């Protein structure tokens, strides 16, 4: 099924872009653009962020870096972005090409933020063999395991979260899985806040410890909803642990509708506006009724003359 869709997509793209693909090889980048440097450091956090964005926006055509499993488009297949002959380009050149697009490569100028684009470049750079300071995504060979388990220990005293990832080897021994990125997510009003920190990779025992932020508001009791999961489902499938933890700062929720304000219900209208309205209506209408009352006097005034 997936391949069918891919093939249809490929045919469609070929049809659309066959004209412009002819000169795809000669993709010149202006000199000014070439000089641009990645403003973000290649920290493991940035690299892993870049990987997530890569998987979302780039992988469907380019495949995994260095794996050469790109979509087989003709006449020009997408480049393996982890290949050395691609990474000889400067950061600026890659950035320019991502922005502008050419032929079947779409433009990402508006669809991905600048920061995210640089993260992707940081991720790709981690495959660069010529890069002097290499900050590779931890690639540790774990033994083949079954029954992978994610355990979560919460230490409420010093607000730390300890996750342990383990699996059973062929020999029947439960071992920790090393170098796997974990995500620690706290539910907020709109989506999840990532509190994983800079280095959320499991150590050789399969453990990863994360310090929960000291100032994160919780509910009245300080409770927050947490999800801890293996970031990349590709390793062991979807593995996550949801938990209500009492690590947040106890907070009394303020309902903006409870106060007297312009946006409130009628019962919560500001006093001054009620006074102005009611006062104005009473003042004007009492004058009107006064005049109406005075009209009754008019016939009497005719008689008093006689």
């Amino acid at each position, binding site marked *: 099924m997936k391949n069918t869709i891919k093939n249809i997509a490929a045919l469609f793209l070929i049809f659309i872009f066959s004209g412009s693909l002819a000169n795809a090889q000669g993709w010149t980048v202006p000199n000014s653009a070439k000089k641009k440097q990645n403003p973000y450091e290649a920290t493991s956090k940035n690299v892993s962020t870049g990987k997530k964005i890569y998987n979302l926006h780039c992988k469907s055509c380019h495949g995994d870096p260095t794996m050469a499993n790109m979509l087989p488009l003709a006449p020009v297949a997408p480049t393996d972005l982890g290949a050395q002959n691609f990474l000889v380009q400067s950061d600026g050149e890659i950035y320019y090409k991502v922005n502008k697009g050419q032929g079947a490569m779409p433009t990402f100028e508006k669809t991905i933020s600048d920061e995210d684009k640089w993260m992707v470049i940081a991720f790709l750079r981690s495959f660069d063999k010529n890069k002097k300071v290499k900050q590779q995504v931890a690639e540790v060979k774990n033994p083949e395991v079954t029954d992978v388990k994610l355990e979560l220990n919460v230490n409420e005293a010093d607000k730390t979260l300890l996750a342990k990832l383990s699996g059973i080897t062929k020999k029947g021994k439960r071992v920790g899985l090393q170098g796997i990125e974990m995500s620690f997510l706290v539910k907020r009003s709109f989506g999840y806040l990532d509190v994983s920190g800079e280095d959320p990779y499991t150590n050789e025992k399969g453990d990863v410890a994360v310090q929960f932020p000291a100032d994160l508001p919780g509910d009245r009791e300080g409770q927050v909803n947490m999800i801890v999961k293996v970031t990349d489902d590709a390793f062991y499938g979807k593995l996550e642990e949801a938990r209500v933890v009492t690590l947040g700062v106890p907070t009394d929720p303020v309902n903006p509708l409870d106060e007297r304000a312009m946006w409130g219900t*009628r019962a919560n209208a500001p006093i001054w506006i009620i006074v102005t309205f009611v006062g104005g209506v009473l003042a*004007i209408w009492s004058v009107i009724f006064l005049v109406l009352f005075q009209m009754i006097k008019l016939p009497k005034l*005719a008689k008093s003359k006689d």
Partner: protein
Amino acid sequence: MNDLPKQKETNLSFEKIKKDILHPMQNHKGLELWIVFLITVISVCGWAYYIQLKDGLGVTGMRDYVSWGLYIANFVFFVAVSLVGMLISSILGLLRIDWITPISRIAEIIAVAFVAVAGLVIVLDMGRPDRVLNVMIHGRFQSPILWDVTVITTYLTVSALLLILPMIPDLAICKKELTKASPIMKKLYNILSLGYINTPEQHKHLHKMIRTLMVLIVPIGLAIHTVTSWLFAATLRNGWDTTIFGPYFVAGAFVAGSAALIIAMYFFRVNYKLQDYITDLQFDKMGKLLVAVCLVYLYFNLNEFLVPGYKMKTGDDIHLKELFYGNWAIMFWASQLLGNIIPIILLVNKKFRKPLPIMIISLFVLAGAWFKRYVIVIPTMLHPHLPIQNVPENFVHYYPSAIEISVTVLSFALVLLIITVLSKIFPVVPIVETAESKGIEVKIDA
């Protein structure tokens, strides 16, 4: 230029004034025909409203984005025109400007008719008019809608009182003179004239009441149109989010109202043969007044468009470009040029302030004022802050449907009908006041 008989210095007697003003009320053949025509129009268009009531507001061109369409634009226009009552009979009346005496009642009739129908137009715009009372029952003090409903009701009441109270002496005359009137009308004159026989006490008492109302209607009149502008200005929409919207609307209202009054003056003068009362002087003065209010409105327009046009904030830029040279340019510039700037240039000349030319110019001003309201309401609704996407095609544009246009025609016909009926049962020119202003002795028999 002027096909009407030339103005003569006539020595009018009280009897002649009475005869001139009361005669056409009962002896005007065309008037009945005109009323029949209006009732026919209302009945036909009433059918359109019945369809809207039956099938809901989906029969209009209004959709999710443009939820205020032709009806609201028309409502703002009606409220604007009604403000002439406050301008003429109250502001100019309190300043004791004497040339307004013969036209002040026409101004009040216009005010009453337009503000009454303005309130009705809002009900016509409701999908469930049976729930109209909920506005009062559940209205929020913070919402301009509650204020608008309140202030329109109040303005209608005070305008009606300001129509009737100064008319009491005339009604006392009607009671005696209009012998051919139907028994119901005689009863009405009898009740409304409140036994007035023009004793000095009665005169003093009556004028005290009138002056009180004249003062009272100034803040109400300002409020009615300021609050109407707040319906728009209290939102964060481009084109409405401006601090001068209140005075801007008031200034625009004086333009529309003055133009409407000039047109009404012309038709009453011709049809009721009131050349001796609504004279060239009144047209000349009204022309000057129209120039004055047009200039004020022009000044507000400069502020309203030049200042945001200079800055071109995000959001405002789309709105203003649409108005200046986009889809709305023709309507926008037509309303500005034909409805404001060219009338100012023409009316500065004395010869254009003669009855016929000024009436024709006023028609343009009034039409311009109507289209100006349309340009204020609809383009802003079409440019929300968030992009319009993934909606049916008819959400993106707004074209009033035939039903909407028919219901709007109904509202106009209703206004004209109210004006016609009021001018048929009440003298359109104040008899007693006119006589008093000319120093003629007034006698009302008991």
